[in-house]
Every structure is written in C-alpha cells, then in structure tokens.
C-alpha cells in the first residue's frame, strides 16, 4: 500500500467510497421499502369484515364478538364505529349521517388458512349469530408483493452497477501499477503472481472504501429515520432496526473488496500477458 492514497489513488479511493455508499444506501432503502410493503401486505391479507345479520344490534354485535373471540385464527375483533366507517369511506359521509351498522373488523393470525371464512361463520352460528364473513380478495396484496420484489431486484441491480463501477475504477489502479507488472513479468513472475499482487492492493483499497461507504450510508439512514419519525429515541431505534437491516452495510466492504480485486486482477493479468508474451 506504499503511496496508495496519493494523487490519483486518493481520487480512486473516494470513487470507490461513493460507489459503495450508493450501493449500501440503495440496499437500506430497499430494506425500508420491503418492510413497509410487508406490513401493508400483512394488514391486507390478515383482514376480514363480519356483517352481523341476526340478531339485531346491539345484542347481535355482542354475541358475535363473544363468538369471534373464542374462534380460532382471530387475533383481534373490533366492532366498527361510525367514525371508523366514515374514515374508511374517505370522509365522503360525515360520521353523524352514518346509520347504525353491525360490522366487526377482524385481524387474523398470520397463519390463518384461505378458507377461514367458513370456520368463522360456523363459530358465529355456534354462538347463535347469523353473520357473513368477507375476506380480503387474494389479489389484495399483489401490489405490495410486486413492490417488495421490485425493491429487492432494484437494489440488487443497482449494487451490480456499482460493483461494475468499482471494478472499472480498480482497473485504473492496475493501469497505475503497469510498470510494476512489467518489471515483475521481466523478472519471471507468473501471471497469477503479478496479477495477484495488484489484486491484493486493490482488494484492500476496496475493503477500506467499502467500510467507509457502508458506514456513511448507515449514518445517512439513521439521519433519515430521525427526521422521518419525530421524537424517536435510541431505544426505539434499537428495537426497530433488525439485524437483517444492517446487511447492506455489512455487504458494502465485502462487495467493494471483491469487485475491486476482480477488476484489478483482470487488468493486471492483461498487462502481464502483454509484457510476457512470446511475440
């Protein structure tokens, strides 16, 4: 690493840092999108509405609530208020104008089967209630699923482009070391020896750059969270951030090191081939 961070190498180092930062930041953003979409997906697929047909309110609602609270796969049952109904209608009808409704909102357990509606209606019947259960249609979570997929593949594609940029920048480092490769070839170094030496240097540079880029992306992500969630404290952040969310930060040094090493190795191998060719 002698003089590795002087002149052109310093500019190269910061290019690698920027690429690693961008890749890690994209990864963090993808994780955020994935988590929000997963929550949305869960809220849509684990949701059902019960319309109590008989007996009439309020006895009907109370009996239905009692039956649903005993039923399997129900996490939570909440009678729908006029205010909640108005909210679901998007404020088109004021709460005061909404007639008495006999609707119950259900949050189902994540492992509830697709035909849970039938078993819920049976549970209501056992409780002496006639009710209709409406489940979220199967395509309700399609958008969220597509969003999650787009986030994962988008981040992967972006990281691949950044890896390509790092690899090409590392070729620049190999070009700066061309004289060393030539001298080594003259002294009888094999391609693996000469390219390996340059690749080692580039790998180390990529590792440091990835570390700096990853940490910067982590700091930027933290700043975004602090701004986006007013009043959030460190303890809340600690519980909110899962270990898997840190994967892009951990992957940045590794990915940058591999991409830089591979790029420099390829270029140095080419230079060695030119220097040692049997013309």
């Amino acid at each position: 690493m002698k003089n590795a961070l002087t002149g052109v190498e310093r500019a190269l180092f910061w290019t690698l840092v920027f690429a690693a930062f961008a890749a890690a930041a994209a990864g963090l953003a993808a994780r955020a999108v994935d988590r929000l979409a997963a929550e949305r997906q869960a809220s849509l697929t684990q949701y059902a509405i019960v319309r109590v047909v008989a007996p009439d309110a309020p006895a009907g609602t109370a009996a239905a609530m009692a039956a649903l609270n005993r039923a399997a796969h129900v996490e939570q049952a909440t009678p729908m208020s006029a205010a909640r109904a108005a909210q679901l209608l998007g404020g088109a009808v004021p709460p005061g104008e909404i007639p008495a409704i006999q609707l119950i909102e259900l949050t189902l357990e994540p492992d509830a089967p697709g035909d849970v509606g039938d078993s819920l209606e049976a549970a209501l019947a056992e409780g002496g209630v006639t009710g209709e259960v409406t489940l979220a249609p199967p395509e309700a979570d399609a958008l969220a699923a597509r969003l999650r997929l787009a986030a994962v593949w988008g981040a992967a594609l972006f990281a691949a482009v950044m890896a390509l940029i790092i690899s090409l920048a590392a070729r620049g480092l190999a070009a700066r070391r061309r004289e060393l490769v030539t001298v080594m070839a003259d002294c009888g170094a094999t391609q693996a020896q000469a390219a390996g030496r340059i690749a080692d240097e580039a790998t180390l540079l990529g590792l440091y750059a990835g570390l700096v880029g990853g940490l910067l992306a982590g700091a930027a992500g933290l700043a975004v969270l602090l701004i986006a969630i007013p009043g959030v404290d460190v303890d809340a952040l600690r519980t909110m951030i899962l270990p898997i969310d840190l994967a892009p930060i951990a992957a940045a040094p590794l990915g940058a090191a591999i991409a830089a090493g591979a790029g420099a190795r390829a270029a140095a191998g080419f230079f060695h081939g030119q220097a040692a060719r049997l013309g």
Partner: protein
Amino acid sequence: MARQNSFDTDLFERGVLARLSGVDAGYGAATVLRGVDFEARKGEVALVTGPEAAGKTSLMHLLRLTLAPRAGRALILGADIARVGARTRAKIKRRIGYVAENPVFVEHWSAFENIVLPLKMAGARARDYTLDVHELVDFVGLASAASDLAMEKLSGAERRRVAIARALAIKPDLILADDPTAGMSPAEGRRIVRVLAEMRRVGAGVVIASQDESLAECGPILRWRIERGRVSPVDHPTRAEAEALE
C-alpha cells in the same frame, strides 16, 4: 512425446546456457533474425556487435524468452522455448538477469526497493538479502546514498547501474545486457562491461549487445557480429586455445 523434446538437460549440464540453431524470428510480417546459430556458455562473456537495426535487441528478446523462433531450435537453460508453456517460461526467466536498453522501473520506489524486487518475488527475507544487496550496490558502482532515492531522481547512468544490480541480485545463470553502455562516457561504459564480465567468475554466462566493438577489449570476451539478422562468430579461439587462455 512433445514434453520429451522440450528439454535438453544434458546440454545444459555441459555448460551450454543458450543454443540457437538455424533460428528465424521476427515481428508480424517482418523477419528480423535469419538462420541464427549462436551459443552462450557458462563462464563465458559474449559480445554481439552490429550496426543499428541489425537485430541485436531481437536476439536479446529471443534469449530472454519474449520472442518465439519461427524456424530452427532455441534452447535456453536447457528448455526449447517454442515448446514449453508460459509457466515454465516464467520459471526460466527467473534464472535470467536482463538489463534492457530502456529499463523499466517502479519510478516512485527507491533504487534499493527496485533492486530487491526479484528477491522478494522469490520469497527471500529482508534480513537475508539486505547486506548482499548493499555489497551489490557497491559492486555496480552506485553510491549508497543514491540507492535510497526514488528512481525518478536518478541520472541515466545511475538508472543503468540499478538495472544491472537488479539483474544480478538473483544470481542468474545467464545475464543479458542490451546496450548497457548507452549514454555513458567510454570510461564509464568500460567499467560497466567489466562489472558484467566479472560475473563469469561465479559461473554465469554473459551476453552483451552493443554497437561499440571496442568493448571487446575489456577482458576475455568472445565476439559475435550481427548484420541484417545474421550472426557470425568473430575470431573465436578453438576450444584448446580457450582452455590455454583460462
């Protein structure tokens, strides 16, 4: 079968470091060397002289395994260079000390670091070679202060001395010097040739290419003449005469 013909260890053990037999070589469509017969032996110094563009540097490239023969046979340190693979060629090159006409260095490294590079490549440890390399620096006439300077700060003559020291550092079997006295005063040039010729005493074979025929006066040197790609011996003593001289 091909592998059996790739090496002639017997020839090498008899002291023949390089033997070219009827070799043609060149670049692209141009044939630079034609029907070359040449030999370099252990403990001998060969001086190849000839006018500009006669093929001296091409002969050196052939001997240092960067130019392939198109016809004939080239045996270098016992290996037929047209038949061996890249790995074996690299192995053989590690036993050849080469002083290029325009030597390439790692410019921001010191002269000392450039000299020890082949030793580091061979896995030698600094404590084992440092003293020897300082002696070598003295031997080639490079001021020890200069050996600590970055290459880009050295004069042309000093750079050539560094190139010679780097070539000798690995204690090569064969030393090739392409115009090693270029840009030097006649006295300085002769001193450099004497330094190179000294290596015959430790059993190396030395081949020097130059336009300057007077370098043959620097010691017991076998002369070869190259013209238009053809090499011929000049006043070579018979084996008996050579032994008597020894």
